[in-house]
């Protein structure tokens, strides 16, 4: 199974969710801001990389975890991806697309915009970390839910 956490630019929320999923961040307690700042790809993905799926790691069930930026037309992008994979004979049940923007608050978006779009990293990056830490529990719940579904799928197989 391939688990794909997607957001706008694969720089913040999808990275946080993927990091929680592969065990780079703790699920039992809140991470500290330094750990988030030092996560692979955190606030690093450039505009010309948006759209490219990036392998983030593997979970304990050997599922591959990816991050993906889908820009502003996420519904259209998902539709294109599913149609494309089906056309190529890929079983789309083997991929799980998880939206990571659902818990992004205004400050995450503002911080992401300042850092990635305007290049004001010194202001934008800490703002994204601060705001994501506020929503940390929501992301833990999201990932635990995904892991639970994956366990059920593995059991059914």
């Amino acid at each position, binding site marked *: 199974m391939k688990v794909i956490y997607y957001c706008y630019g694969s720089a913040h929320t999808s990275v946080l969710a993927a990091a929680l999923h592969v065990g780079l961040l703790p699920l039992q307690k809140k991470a500290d801001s330094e750990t988030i700042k030092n996560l692979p790809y955190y606030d690093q993905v450039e505009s010309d990389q948006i759209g*490219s*799926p990036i392998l983030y790691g593997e979970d304990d069930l050997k599922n591959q975890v*990816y991050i993906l930026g889908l820009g502003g037309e996420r519904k259209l992008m998902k539709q294109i991806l599913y149609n494309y994979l089906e*056309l190529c004979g*890929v079983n789309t049940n083997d991929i799980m697309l998880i939206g990571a923007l659902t818990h992004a608050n205004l400050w995450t978006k503002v911080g992401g915009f300042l850092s990635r779009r305007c290049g004001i990293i010194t202001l934008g990056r800490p703002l994204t970390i601060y705001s994501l830490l506020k929503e940390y529990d929501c992301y833990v719940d999201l990932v635990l839910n995904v892991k639970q579904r994956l366990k059920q799928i593995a059991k059914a197989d």
Partner: protein
Amino acid sequence: MKIIYYGEYSLGLPLIAASFYLGTINNKKDLEDKLAVFKLNNEKNTGELVYVDTDELGNEVFILGCKAQVLLVKRMLAGFKEIFALENEVILIETTSFNNNLTKLGKILIKLGFAGVGLSIIKAGIKSDYKQIKQQVIRIKERIAN
């Protein structure tokens, strides 16, 4: 093998390029006929892979409209092609490289709300460059055949 021609509007450059590829446009009249179906109202299938025909080598040819997401779609499809090892399954052909100044201007006008004028200018741009588009498609076809 599947061949996918994609661009902003499926019935614009993707359909024209796919038609050149399939040999269904042989003269300006054929081109006019194809461009006649290119209406923004007909672009409701954006995001769907629309089957056009099968070429003489047995490859199925599709067109895809991606709105303004062409670059992202290009990276996404290429990325998943690699992940699922689809090199022998699909060929992706981005048609925005066939754009000229007129088609670019037409797209800007559509975005600004001048849909009718914009579309007419895009069609004029395709018509003015149709020989070059055909040449490029022929080169693509030669590469595929080899």
